[in-house]
Structure formats: structure tokens, C-alpha cells
């Protein structure tokens, strides 16, 4: 009786651990797929940001680096100073409210 109980406990423990391994593999796969799609969704936004950091004389280039060579916030400074950006932002806020 005792040895049969022991054997049953062994089998159920092995079944549990293989079930746990399958569960872990499934969770790993889910994370990989989700991460892949997150990259696909967020990458264009990162590209927009990295193009905005490019210096003015190298605006078009085939370099795929996320932080381009000679990066700087010059475009942002021009946006705030030479265009009516703050006025447009105020307009949007007023219309939303």
C-alpha cells in the first residue's frame, strides 16, 4: 500500500513538473510574440524621434541608428522659436475644452 502510494505521488509530481515546463514554454512564447509586435508598433515612433534629432545638414540619410550622428535638439528649438507652436497648442487646448 505504502509503495503504491509512493509511486502514485512520484507520477503526479512528474506530471506536475512537466505540466509546469509546458506552461513556462507557453508563457515564454507569448512574451516573445508580444514583444515582437510591440517593437513593430513602437518602432515608427522611435524613428520619428530619431529623425527629429538629426542635424540640419544630414536630414536624409540611409543610416538606421536610433540616435543619429551629431544628434541635437536644434529642430525643437526652431519649432518653439520660429513657428507659432505655442499658439497652436493653446488653440487645441481651447477647442478640446
Amino acid at each position, binding site marked *: 500500500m505504502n509503495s503504491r502510494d509512493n509511486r502514485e505521488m512520484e507520477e503526479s509530481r512528474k506530471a506536475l513538473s512537466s505540466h509546469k515546463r509546458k506552461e513556462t514554454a507557453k508563457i515564454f512564447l*507569448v512574451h516573445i510574440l*508580444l514583444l515582437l509586435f510591440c517593437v513593430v508598433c513602437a518602432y515608427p515612433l522611435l524613428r520619428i524621434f530619431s529623425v527629429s534629432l538629426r542635424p540640419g545638414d544630414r536630414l536624409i540619410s540611409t543610416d*538606421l541608428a536610433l540616435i543619429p550622428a551629431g544628434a541635437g535638439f536644434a529642430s525643437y528649438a526652431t519649432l518653439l522659436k520660429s513657428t507659432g507652436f505655442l*499658439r497652436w497648442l493653446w488653440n487645441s487646448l481651447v477647442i478640446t475644452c
Partner: protein
Amino acid sequence: MTNGLLGPVLDVAGFLLLIIACVMVLEAWLYLHLKCSDRKWFLPAAAAAAPLLVLGIFTAAAGHMPEGGRFFSVTGSALIAGISAAAFARYFVRGRYSLAYMLTAPAFIGLALLILYPLVFEIYLSFHDLKLTTIMEWKRSGYLPFVGLSQYWKVFVSSPLSDVTFWQLFMRTIWWTVVNVFFHVLGGFCLALLLNNRIQFKGIYRTLMVIPWAMPQVVAVLAMRGEFHSQYGFINIMLERLLVILPFLKALGVGPVQWLSDHPLLTCTIINVWLGIPFMMVVMLGGLQSISHSYYDAASIDGASWFQRLRYITLPLIKPVAMPAITLGAIWTFNNINVIYLVTGQSGGTEEADILVSALYKAAFTFNRYSYSAAFAIVIFAVLFGLSMLLMRVSKGAESAYEQQR
């Protein structure tokens, strides 16, 4: 100083005060209607007061009366509005609901002006003939030639753009809608299934994956159009580098492609699928989370496989949530002028990827055929209305989950 920071604030404050004054006048007018509606002198007084009020506003605000035929049409519509408001107050509103009507009236009137009036004007335009050659005459005298149903006839028979007919555009729009909605639903459902498990970082994944939908659509579409550029967009750059790493792919035909000139509709489809999957994912996730676990527990006790659980439990129970979302997605995709016009419709683009609504936009604003576009718009609306009614009827999506289980 007034042009710097204080100027716009004073502008906005003045505008707000004007709106508040108009709403107060409207509420006072309605209150008088509802209070005195059972006096004998009510109907004639209301019928007389409304056009006088309108003329008073015109004279005060614009400094002159409207001329010619416009004068009579304005007075006539003010008369009709006054009499109908009086009749409404007297015969339809019973005392208890008068406060509700008074409170919702400003919003209703605002919406009616913004939605009803353009709709009525569009129907009026579609039966007359307003184009570049008749617009000056119309401005001068308020007269438009009446052409009956000939604009509608022209919609079906002649071509809105250079050489593409209505039926070609219609087929292309149907194809565009079907392909896009298919990939939206497939991608959204798969992602919702993935997110529905017990995993960590669900919030972070959901936030990152909602980015295409959360970005302003114009910005996202223009950025993606730049990325499909044949030389400097990252799609072609990555394909070139992939060919360097794995050169056997060249034999399979993989390589940099002239996206915007050779395959404009495919480019628009890829961009629209990228934009539309997050919405479907969020809706499907909500639907999946509303299915109670007891169904799945009962099924796994009975020995159902994963696919059987999907087919017999998940799909039927997610239908009342998914079908309205799919209908909405189909309507939005059918009418999606943003992606098509911004990617291919601007100057220097191509007309190959036009769908019905972008051809409508071009006919109206590039070729100045306003009456034709009005008729075209009404035809598109009728088609879309019919298709969505058909979709809702066929899928029985308007029933709730409880009715379906019976």
C-alpha cells in the same frame, strides 16, 4: 503686450461670453414658450416674434439685411422654426419634462446647425448644378439651375477622375475594406488571445501596442509614408541589409521595392493595418475578459482541446462584442480618406490607389465639381448604409449574448 500672451486669452474670454449670452437668450425664449404655451395669444405671437428676432439679429450683427432671394428664404425658415417651436411647446411637451427640454436645447440646436444644415444643403446641391462655371452667378443672385436627377445619373455613368469609372472604384473600395478588416480582426484577435493569459507586464505591452492608434492619425500616416520611400525609408533599407546578410533571398524576389510608385494600394493597406490593429485588440480583449472562466473549466474537464475551446466557447461568446466593432471598423475603413489621400493623393502622387471617398474629395476640391460630389456623397452614404445593415442582419450581431444562447 496685447499681441503677446494677453491677447488670445481675451479673445477666448470674449468668445465664451458671447456663447453664454446666446445660450441665455435661447433658454429665456424657451422658458417663455413653455410657460405661456396655454394662453390664447400664444401661437400668433410666437409666429410673429421669430422672424422679427432673426431680422433684428441680422441687422444688428451684420449691419445690413440679406439681399434678394436670401432674405425671403431666411425669413421663411425663421417663420417655420418659430411656428414649430410654438407647436412643440404647446402640443407635445407636458409640464414635467419642460426642464429636460430646456437643458438639452442648446446642445441640440448646435448639433442641428452643424450636422443637419450641411446635410440638407448637400441634398439641395445634388439636385442642382454647382460647379466652377456657375458659382459666380450663384454668389451674385442666389440662383442655381435645377437639373433633377442628372447629377445622380452622371455619378454612375461618367468618371470622377481621369479614366476610372464608378464601378471600378466601388470594387476597389470593397476589396480595400475586406482585406483591411480581415487583417485587423485577425491581428486584433490573436493579440487579445495572447494578452488574455496570466503573464507579467500586461500593462506595458498594452500601452506600447496602443501607440499606432493613440498617435494623431495624420502624423502617423505621413511618417509611415516617409518610411516607405524607396531610398531613405527604413523598410527598403532593412530589406537591402537583409539581402546582404542572407543573399539567397534575392532569388525568391525579396528586395527593395518602389513602394509608392509601383504598389500604392498595398502600401496604404499595410499602413492602415498597422494603424487599425490596436483598436480591434482593445475591443477583443475587453470581450475576452468578460467570458467567465466556468465555461473553460467545464470544457477542460470534458476533455476539450485548445482549438475546440476556441471554436465552441470563445468565438460565440465574443460575437456580441466583436460584431459591432467589426461593423464600425468596416465603416471607418470604407470611408478612410486619411490614409489614401495623405499617402498617394497629394500633388506628385498617383491616382491608382483611389477609393470612392478620395475620388469624391478630388472631384470636389481639385476639380470644383460641387454638385456632382454632393450626389456622389449621397450615393456612397446609401451604399454604406445598405452594406452595414446587411452586415448587422446577417451576423445577428445586434442580439445580446443571452439571446444567442437560447
